[in-house]
């Protein structure tokens, strides 16, 4: 086992790969939050009056709200007055028209992250809307998408160019008063992505946003809104990284999905924010509200997430199943190592008849990581014939970590059928022995077992992401058994 231990050390010591800071001029407002900051953000973004009012209303509500404390995460109170709420690369004033005009430093940043925009444009066929701190810097493939009538742009742009769509759907899934962080986001969000897929259109490529927090002390508050009109389909990819800093940074995003009749939205996330160092210093506080509304009949929303980063993850991508026969899915792999804490899960609210939902959650805890699955399955009175299947498995690596399962199941209709099961296990000595006996190295064996454990989730990821996710897990875990 000594080799294994050596490898543990090697992997545990592995530095965060995306820990560089990009040195570019940014334009920021001083830290602190009051009405004037919100007015300033709104003015900078040349927002219409209704949006400013909407923000101010959210801010008013937020001030009266308390931080949620029910999650099994532990962190010192956040000083919301010490955060900078707006930070934008200076070159924004004359916004780039194409990639060639984008600050080469920025592009280099993305290159380091492994998402060279140009290359992707040329090869991968993925349209990337890259969000750098708070302002969307470049959107690729727009013209191609425009031909099909697909709108894919930064949120600010959508506010300017498609205000009717934004006004109609903004806050329709996550109301401003939904929770503390959603209210904060509603008040101060700076940018994000907007997607609209018209009737009957199958989006020809996978849409993707890459989030990155750069400036120190900057909270990132982005807002994503995806609307899939009748009979349309879209697959959306989201990836996140942040540079390495000693202090904790707050990330409070809101994602809203709306699926109309027969529409389908597939939303995949690979979250690799800086998790803090081995002592648990620094790292991102990832407090995110994600919710999809299956509004139309036979609509379908799938959330797939691979959460390997962040010091604290607090997110519950949910589905509101309103339309008859609508389907909600949640596939999750959450990994916590060192002092990382994750309290994540989903909510499936069955309102319409014959609605179905599936929850597959795989939690992996290592080091001193704490990993909690918290989920709600609610079957309302009118949800005749609703069906839910939940499976939450935990894998523990090491004896100083924790794995917790907190499922809430509320059933108000007798014709509903729901099943929940959960198991907790570790990588067995005998499993390892079996593999080694067949000439598989310890490291490969662990990787194989973990991949097998997560298979049901990885299968749901688009190809490019599945590879990245596997690699990420590998980095954090391989050899962590001794």
């Amino acid at each position: 086992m000594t080799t294994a231990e050596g490898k543990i050390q090697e992997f545990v010591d592995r530095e965060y790969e995306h820990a560089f800071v990009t040195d570019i001029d940014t334009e920021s407002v001083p830290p602190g939050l009051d009405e004037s900051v919100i007015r300033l953000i709104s003015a900078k973004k040349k927002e219409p009056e209704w949006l400013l009012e909407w923000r101010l209303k959210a801010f008013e509500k937020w001030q009266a709200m308390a931080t949620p404390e029910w999650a099994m995460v532990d962190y010192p109170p956040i000083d919301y007055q010490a955060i900078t709420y707006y930070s934008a690369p200076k070159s924004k004033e004359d916004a780039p028209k194409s990639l060639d005009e984008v600050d080469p430093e920025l592009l280099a940043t993305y290159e380091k992250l492994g998402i060279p925009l140009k290359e992707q444009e040329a090869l991968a066929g993925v349209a990337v809307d890259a969000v750098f701190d708070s302002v969307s810097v470049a959107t690729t493939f727009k013209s191609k998408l425009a031909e099909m009538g697909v709108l894919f742009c930064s949120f600010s742009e959508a506010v300017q160019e498609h205000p009717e769509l934004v006004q109609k759907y903004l806050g329709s899934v996550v109301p401003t008063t939904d929770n503390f962080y959603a209210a904060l986001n509603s008040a101060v969000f700076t940018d994000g992505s907007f997607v609209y897929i018209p009737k009957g259109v199958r989006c020809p490529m996978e849409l993707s946003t890459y989030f990155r927090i750069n400036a120190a002390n900057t909270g990132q508050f982005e807002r994503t809104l995806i609307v899939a009109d009748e009979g349309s389909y879209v697959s959306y990819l989201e990836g996140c990284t942040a540079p390495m800093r000693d202090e904790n940074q707050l990330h409070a995003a809101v994602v809203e999905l709306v699926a109309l009749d027969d529409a389908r939205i597939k939303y995949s996330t690979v979250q690799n924010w800086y998790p803090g160092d081995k002592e648990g210093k620094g790292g991102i506080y990832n407090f995110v509200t994600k919710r999809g509304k299956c509004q139309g009949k036979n609509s379908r929303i799938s959330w797939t997430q691979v959460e390997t980063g962040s010091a604290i993850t607090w997110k519950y991508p949910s589905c509101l199943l309103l339309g008859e026969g609508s389907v909600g899915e949640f596939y999750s792999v959450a990994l916590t190592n060192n002092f990382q804490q994750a309290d994540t899960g989903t909510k499936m609210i069955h309102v319409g008849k014959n609605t179905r939902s599936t929850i597959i959650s795989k939690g992996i805890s290592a080091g001193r990581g704490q990993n909690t699955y918290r989920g709600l399955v609610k079957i309302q009175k009118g949800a005749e014939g609703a069906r839910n299947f939940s499976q939450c498995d935990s894998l523990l690596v090491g004896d100083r970590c924790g794995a917790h399962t907190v499922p809430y199941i509320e059933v108000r209709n007798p014709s509903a059928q729901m099943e929940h099961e959960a198991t907790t296990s570790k990588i067995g000595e005998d499993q390892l022995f079996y593999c080694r006996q067949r000439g598989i190295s310890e490291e490969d064996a662990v990787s194989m077992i973990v991949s097998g454990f997560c298979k049901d989730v990885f299968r749901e990821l688009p190809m490019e992401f599945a590879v990245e996710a596997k690699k990420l897990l590998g980095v954090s875990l391989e050899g962590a058994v001794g």
Partner: protein
Amino acid sequence: MSAIQSPPENPGQLERWVDAFEERDAVGGERESLRELRRRAMRAFQDEGFPTTSLELWRYTNVQSIARTDYGLTAAPSSLSQEALDAISPPTIAADAHRLVFVDGHFAPELSSHSRTAWFSPLSAAIAAGEELDLGRCVDPEGHPFAALNTAFFVDGAWIHLAADEKVAAPIHLIHVTTAGAKPRAVHARHLIQLAAGARATLVETYLGQGSGETLSTAVIEVQLEREAELQHVKLQLEEENAAHIAQGAARLAQGARFDSHLFSLGARLARNAFDVVLLGEQASCRLAGLYVCDGSRHADCQTYVDHAVPHGTSEQHYRGVLDGQSHGVFNGRVLVREDAQKTDAQQQNANLLLSRDASVDTKPQLEIYADDVKCSHGATIGQLDPQAIFYLRSRGIGEHAARGMLTRAFADEILDEIELEPLRRFASERLHSKLSDAAASQGV
């Protein structure tokens, strides 16, 4: 979403209890340690008030109807005749059973059939004799508002203390009757069960009601099992329709101790049965099983908490609910495996059967695990009777009602069949089946 605590409700509701307590406290006559425990409990209750649904542990159980009721807190116990008792209580559960009867929270020797034993004493007698009782160790009044009330107000109960290797073969049957009158009555039952190393006993608790008026009974049972001690525990909770029953049990298990508990929650308008088990010694094991059957607008809440504090512990939980009418069933099970509690084996199962359109269930089976070499699993299911199974039975000439009844009973029998005492099983089974056939008959097809 937000965790804002609502302030304690109308303070007037608490005052009644506080005044009654002070009156009682002024009388004195108890050991100082007990008086201090009672005062601490009352302070805890005053601070916390009646629980509201904003508290996680009370999320699905609303006790505002209890908070609002003006209970007679110091009423003297009614007298109950043997005939009246026989009419409601289970038949003798064993020929040689030790039958200990409590009426409105007071020991009733004339109704009890206990032969004088060294291991039993009514708590009231032990308190009067100045015994130092280890009360409040298993159930902390803080954080348990109804247990706090119980601690502050209890008058009597059973103190059962078995010496090392003492084995009581005959079942010990504690029967509690709460009588209802014109004025709502609150009654507090308190039991302290201490089994020394290697001791063994079977304990049956039965809670009954007489009359149809409003009653509240709080019940607290504290169980201490030393090395290799074994306790079989059965609780039949069968009160009348206007009763509220809020119980908190707790057991502490030393090395190799075994605790088996079966709960049958069949009565009362509002019933909550909570049981906490702490495994403090290696190789200790426990099994908590329960069946809650509700019709009408009954509300039954089962709460469990198993704390694996040391390695090599085993725990099993198996709870089943049958819900009819507009009833509401709640299961909240929690398993905690502490750091270093390796080789723990913890299983948790909850299954629910919804028989009517308006019945509802909330279940929350939780695992909280801080050790890696453990086997833990839990599962929960909620559904209605399998239409294919009904079809199968009907295709064999069995009527729809009979088929439904048969399947429902089979569902409940999984728990019922675990009772080892034959007469007790028969009694519980009859109670249950009459309830279930009412339920099955009420099914509109």
